[in-house]
């Protein structure tokens, strides 16, 4: 007790030095305080002020010390025995469903506590990267193909094969192609897909029906451009041809010609004429007026699905009749429609749909090397993949369940748009598609999030024509991959 008192006393003894320190930090705050304290009163109540300062200095120092020591404790984010942290990206709808699944797992495994952490797509990867550098990744993370090699090749994920062999993680009902999509080049199983989806063009069916426009079955880019023009001329509604987006559409287009966009970590395109048609489509769109004005996109958050031009606007100038996306986003887009229109989906256009299209095992689950109880984590993934109730809750949120038996289980009780999305994957894509391209190279994230969007932007602002855009894309993308 005496010791404590003497410490406290010595605090107040040299409170002035502490005050100088806090003064530096709170210079402007103090200036504010002074403004509201009348000078004469300050002199009269000098004694009181000194006391207050002393008290403040003590409280401030103790508070600071506590906060510093608290820092040390809060680093234990990763799992101890019965605690799992799971991180993913997604909309509110997905987060609610995921929370229900986690609760269910906790109920079936008494004593286990699950901590779910979610963010928007781009924030998610930033958070995960800082977690990786600080050795503090969550136990289970959602993984996506553009980032897969980055994490797998740097030994940040653990091999799931032992858990599959031991029967903890049962993948017997999952097709070999789907399982293999989660393997690295050396063949280690690092990730398990949480659902199957496919490239899909979501469009406003009610609008197109009312205009008497139908989308032909195997449509090409020329058909697409014709329809955009027709829609615009008949209704004023414009087109969002995948503006400010990643390279997936370009990759799809090249696949139709039998080419790959990336090969062995390098850009596989050297001649700009190969990719010029893609950029020419944007140029035509802005010249003929059917593409959305780029200014529209400066007023919305691109990663927020509820602000997508397909559903968020009622006036023709801001509205798009279509959205280049993935089949699993149909239900959430449909749920956000406000004018009662019905959405439908079809393939992205291509000169050869069968070559272009692919089933996309997506949104993988992976277990990080920071996980202290990988066995429990593997059990959670197994639960997500094989538990009927969990599958029912998630529905088609992350795509069609990878467990072939679950399709029948979840079918009843699904909404119309969920069923449409499943039908699309099963009946349209699966019989008429090719093997998925290899994961994008490690340094492709800059191409996806910056180079491609800004090249598209420069076309729509008429700073570049299609040929210049193609040249710029090739030179910048290859520079980024070799940096």
């Amino acid at each position, binding site marked *: 007790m*005496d*010791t404590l008192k*003497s*410490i406290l*006393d*010595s*605090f107040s*003894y*040299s*409170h002035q*030095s*502490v005050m100088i*320190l806090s003064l530096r930090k709170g210079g*402007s705050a103090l*200036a*504010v305080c*002074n*403004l*509201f304290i009348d000078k004469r009163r300050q002199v009269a109540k000098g004694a009181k002020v000194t006391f207050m300062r002393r008290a403040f200095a003590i409280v*401030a*120092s103790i508070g*600071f*010390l506590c906060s*510093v020591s608290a*820092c040390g404790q809060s680093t234990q984010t990763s799992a101890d025995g019965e605690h799992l942290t799971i991180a993913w990206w997604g909309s509110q709808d997905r987060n609610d469903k995921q929370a229900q699944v986690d609760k269910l797992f906790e109920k079936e495994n008494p004593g286990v506590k699950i901590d779910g952490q979610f963010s928007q797509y*781009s924030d998610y*990867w*930033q958070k995960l*990267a*800082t977690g*990786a*550098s600080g050795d503090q990744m969550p136990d289970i993370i959602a993984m996506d193909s553009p980032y897969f090699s*980055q*994490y797998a*090749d*740097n030994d*940040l994920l653990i091999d799931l094969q032992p858990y599959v062999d031991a029967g903890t993680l049962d993948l017997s009902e999952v097709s070999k192609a789907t399982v293999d999509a989660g393997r690295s080049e050396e063949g280690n199983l690092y990730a398990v897909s949480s659902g199957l989806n496919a490239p899909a063009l979501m469009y406003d069916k009610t609008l197109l029906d009312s205009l008497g426009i139908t989308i032909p079955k195997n449509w090409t880019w020329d058909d697409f451009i014709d329809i955009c023009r027709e829609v615009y001329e008949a209704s004023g509604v414009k087109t969002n041809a995948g503006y400010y987006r990643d390279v997936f559409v370009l990759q799809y287009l090249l696949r139709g010609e039998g080419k790959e966009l990336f090969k062995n970590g390098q850009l596989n395109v050297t001649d700009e004429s190969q990719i010029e048609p893609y950029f020419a489509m944007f140029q035509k769109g802005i010249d003929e007026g059917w593409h959305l*004005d*780029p*200014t*529209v*996109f*400066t*007023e919305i958050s691109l990663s927020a699905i509820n602000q997508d031009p397909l559903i968020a606007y009622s006036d023709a100038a*801001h509205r798009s009749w279509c959205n280049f996306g993935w089949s699993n986003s149909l239900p959430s887009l449909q749920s956000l429609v406000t004018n009662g229109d019905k959405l439908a989906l079809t393939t992205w256009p291509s000169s050869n749909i069968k070559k272009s299209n692919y089933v996309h095992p997506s949104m993988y689950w992976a277990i990080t090397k920071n996980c202290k109880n990988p066995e429990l984590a593997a059990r959670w993934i197994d639960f997500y993949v094989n538990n009927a109730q969990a599958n029912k809750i998630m529905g088609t949120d992350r795509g069609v369940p990878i467990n072939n038996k679950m399709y029948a289980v979840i079918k009843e009780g699904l909404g119309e748009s969920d069923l449409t999305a499943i039908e699309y994957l099963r009946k349209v894509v699966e019989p008429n598609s090719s093997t998925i391209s290899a994961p994008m190279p*490690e*340094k492709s*994230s*800059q191409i996806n*999030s*910056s180079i491609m969007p*800004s090249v598209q*932007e*420069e076309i729509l*602002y008429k*700073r570049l024509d299609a040929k210049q855009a193609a040249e710029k894309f090739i030179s910048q993308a290859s*520079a*980024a991959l070799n*940096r």
Partner: protein
Amino acid sequence: MRLHSLMGLVEDMDEEKLTWKQKLVRFFNRESVAGVVCSLPFIIGFLAFMVVPMVLSLFYSFTDYSIVASPQWVGLKNYITMFTDDPLFWQSLWVTLLFAVISVPLKLGFALAVALLLQRQTRLTGFYRIAYYLPSILGGSVAVAILWRRMFAQDGVINSVLGLFGINSHFSWLGDPRTAIWTLITLSVWQFGSSMLIFLAALKQIPTELYEAASMDGAGSWRRFKDITMPLLTPTIFFNLIMQMISGFLAFTQCYIITQGKPLNTTLFYMVHMYNTSFTYYQAGYGAAMAWVMLLIVGVFTLLLFATKRFWVYEEKMK
């Protein structure tokens, strides 16, 4: 060795006869120990949150560091790439310079004008001071940034107000490369509150005798402002200028939330480019190098301002 003790209890005893408790008390009462203990919160914080990260970031700036993999030493490569092969580096530097050079003087001008208005004591002065200070508290927040985006949208408040005056505008303030940066500058100027408060404090420090004497000599209000208020305010203006210039160079939120650099990178702040490079493109080594270049730039500007100090900042001569 007799040491001063606040407790006064253990002062006269021999060193050997003291119990460990008393030794401890004596130890903590040494002036040097007390000083160190009291400064400990700062020292720990400074080491953990300033020195260590800065040294690390200097190291990273010479490496290829993708955050998820361990850093690889590459020497000066990052710096060379930056100056020779990164058009966005120059673009973002230019945007940031433009932003700082335009918004800081405007902001200080507003702050000073409002401070002069609010100097007079009326019943509502307190209310006005708070009202004008609020934007600087709210200004950095995400909510205001989003509000700003809505205000300058094509169907936003700004265009509606213009509509009231018969200007039927569907102009996209955020979408046009010529105007987008100005929306951010306006937002920054609107947050003049903290400079205003510092100006107010400085205005109150000016002795009223000076004004009285000047009035007696027949000086009008403009003359009093020009020859008394302004010279005596110059040290405060100098302080505000330096602080605001630094925060102008380091501006981040406005761009990150409102524009993300769009359109055509005309609003891409240096800090946002650095952040994207580090955390979106996973090139943290390059980002660290960018941070050090910015440190140098801010340092040079601050030095330049200090060099001009003796030409315009009034300092009372000590007698």
